[in-house]
């Protein structure tokens, strides 16, 4: 095939960008943000309904909004953005042409079409089955059909990404091994293919069942296979988010991984051990043995958790090493104090690392222990946990990356640079508190997916302690703060793309520590070898102590409940 690809050269970074990849990255990212807006509004409706004093939506609308919220933000927003990241990693970072742009556009339209079809099914009101759509509760066929079309689109996007890797290798657009960020993106795409396969195995029969061609779907089998999709798709999010952490560390600080070997092995641990896990969601289910639950839910001896703990050290460690080489060497934490806290790309990144670890990571591992799950399952603790992962972890990392990537890719100035400085704090702290208050209410037994914990229409009622009502109110207020943060982000991004002034100098987020002076400052090693990172190590130990204490406190709670055997 004759190569007719047109490129432009990015004035900020010097990257050679395939114009078709450029356009696809933009369309995918923008579509993601649109769904973040839609899904975010549904989420706000949910949070304001669960605030007892406000109780905004009627019951049918509440459950409808909750179904739409889960689908639009957890799936559509995140995956559109991830596809943009895949194309960015494949085409831009490797300086290659994108494989089969036409297929990539087909993927885009399938994802968009599928997302719209499922949204229509939900909004029509006949598919209020929650995002998880547990059988035998039945949605309209279009609900499953839309998700399947969306997933096939994602699969095509992954194939385009793999094809791009092959092209880049053949065309020798880079020398040696692919960059760590591309390696991470590849890991994400591999897990995504597994995820989509599991999704096909369960959603296609469910679609046929919903149409009437299949008579019965086993409820337990449905959940095992559905979560092989549902849980793995969260691993895709983790991997992409960590790849972007490494990317931001490199862009903002010229940071190198402490050791390529360690970081890449940690990514490999994900491929080897993450995807087998789906049983986190089935720990208090009948019909599965404890042996299977323990092995599966621990990702085989917690070896994938080990991977995350390694990244938890190596990402901030890379920043510390880079800062120390620049001379911020005083004491344990000068490198951190002198970091650009007013740059939203950095503050969003830093908050994402910390909040993901403390709010999402620790709690997820804790409640994934077979017996501890008894005091957690289906309480509000569960959404509390995953708002700690996908909202203040993944979504915040995507926002941070956008502060660099939108001005650079569109070559425009941010329209609201002043308020952007505050946005990561507003969103991170607001949504972080949402996570904390939901988990707090969950430990008091407040159920998830529940319209009325006052039980005003119920024949019998349970009176939750006052603290539970208080936390639901605080959760609503925190959601308003976080929602404001999200709204500012969306306005800023959309405004920049539509009305932003053409860029004259590098955006502050894009401080071109890239190759020019970055390479001079840093030694010529492939990794930041030999540089000790005492500050990061101290922070990691703080994390470990919090982890250990929190883990055993929950065993103590468990020991206090009725004996069960």
């Amino acid at each position, binding site marked *: 095939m004759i190569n007719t690809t047109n490129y432009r050269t990015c004035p900020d970074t010097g990257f050679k960008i395939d114009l078709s990849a450029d356009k696809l990255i933009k369309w995918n990212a923008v579509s993601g943000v649109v769904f973040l807006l839609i899904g975010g509004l549904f989420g706000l409706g949910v949070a304001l309904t669960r605030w007892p004093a406000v109780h905004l939506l009627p*019951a049918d609308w509440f*459950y409808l909004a909750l179904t739409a919220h889960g689908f639009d933000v957890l799936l559509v927003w995140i995956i559109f953005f991830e596809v943009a990241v895949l194309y960015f990693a494949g085409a831009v970072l490797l300086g290659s042409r994108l494989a089969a742009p036409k297929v990539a556009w087909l993927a885009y339209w399938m994802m968009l079409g599928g997302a719209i079809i499922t949204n229509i099914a939900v909004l029509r009101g006949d598919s209020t089955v929650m995002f998880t759509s*547990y059988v*035998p*509760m039945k949605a309209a066929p279009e609900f499953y059909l839309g998700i399947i079309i969306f997933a096939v689109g994602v699969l095509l996007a992954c194939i385009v990404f793999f094809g791009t890797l092959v092209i880049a290798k053949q065309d020798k657009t880079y*020398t040696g*091994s692919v*960059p*760590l960020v591309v390696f991470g993106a590849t890991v994400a795409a591999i897990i995504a293919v597994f995820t989509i396969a599991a999704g096909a195995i369960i959603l296609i029969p469910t679609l046929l069942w919903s149409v009437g061609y299949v008579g019965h779907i086993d*409820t337990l089998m449905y959940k095992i296979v559905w979560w092989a999709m549902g849980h793995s798709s969260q691993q895709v999010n983790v991997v992409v988010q960590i790849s972007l952490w490494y*990317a931001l560390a490199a862009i903002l600080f010229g*940071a*190198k991984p402490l050791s390529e070997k360690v970081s890449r092995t940690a990514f490999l641990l994900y491929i080897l051990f993450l995807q087998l896990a789906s049983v986190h969601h089935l720990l*208090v*289910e*009948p019909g599965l043995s404890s042996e299977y639950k*323990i092995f599966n839910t*621990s990702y085989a*001896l917690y*070896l994938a*958790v080990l991977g995350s*703990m*390694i990244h938890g*050290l*190596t990402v901030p*460690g890379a920043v510390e090493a880079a800062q120390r080489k620049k001379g911020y060497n005083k004491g344990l934490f000068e490198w951190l104090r002198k970091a650009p806290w007013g740059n939203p790309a950095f503050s969003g990144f830093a908050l994402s690392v910390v909040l993901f670890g403390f709010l999402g990571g620790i709690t997820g591992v804790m409640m994934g*222990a077979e*017996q501890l799950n*008894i005091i957690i*399952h*289906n309480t509000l603790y569960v959404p509390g946990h995953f708002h700690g992962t996908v909202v203040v972890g993944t979504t915040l990392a995507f926002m941070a990356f956008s502060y660099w990537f939108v001005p650079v890719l569109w070559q425009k100035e941010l329209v609201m640079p002043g308020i952007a400085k505050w946005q990561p704090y507003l969103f991170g702290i607001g949504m972080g508190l949402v996570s904390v208050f939901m988990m707090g209410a969950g430990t*008091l*037994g407040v*159920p*998830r*997916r529940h*319209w009325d914990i006052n*039980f005003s229409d*119920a*024949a*019998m*009622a*349970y009176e*939750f302690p006052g603290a539970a009502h208080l936390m639901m109110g605080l959760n609503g207020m925190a959601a308003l703060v976080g929602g404001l943060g999200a709204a500012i982000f969306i306005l800023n991004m959309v405004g920049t793309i539509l009305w932003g002034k053409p860029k004259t100098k590098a955006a502050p987020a894009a401080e071109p520590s890239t*190759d020019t002076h970055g390479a001079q400052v840093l030694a*010529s090693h*492939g*990794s930041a*070898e030999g*540089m000790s990172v*005492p500050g990061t190590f101290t922070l990691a130990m703080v994390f*470990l102590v919090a982890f250990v204490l929190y*883990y055993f406190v929950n*065993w103590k709670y468990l*020991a206090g*409940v*009725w*004996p*069960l*055997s």
Partner: protein
Amino acid sequence: MSIFPPEKRIWWKEPIERSEILWIVIALVWSLIMFVMMPYWHIAGEQNLSNEAYRIRPEVFAERTEAMAEKYTVREEGDTGIPVVHPPAGSDIYMLARLWEWWPVLELEKDQTYRLHLSSMDYQHGFSLLPENINLQIHPDYEMVVTIKPNRSGEYSVVCNEFCGIGHHTMVGRIHVVDK
């Protein structure tokens, strides 16, 4: 840098920095401790779910539940007149989940063990015993058996915490634990 290929072609032979190795060892040890906690609790802990479960047709489960209720009902409760069943200590007891109630109300004796059978007549439901905060997932066509030993007397509620349709939030049941 992480966005460029490693500068050293043979990056896999670079030495690993000491604090990194130390952290990996610590994290691995912690991972193994967490893993061991689960089997350990099966041996030494008191809160474990049995692996006892059966496939069952909803009507069969309903029959067994009704048979128990017929035998041991002691009174009725509330506006709905739902039966309160006081089965003998140590016996097999049944509670069924259906849109949107837990049936019947159970009255148990403190510090006695019971084999609690749970199943659903329709959708999936979530058995959330409050204020204990014991949570179990209830499936149709599956009968879960768990041995419980209520160790405090008082009034307990069973709130449904799996979404089961528009009346989900009204689905509340009751277990009384009485001193002998």
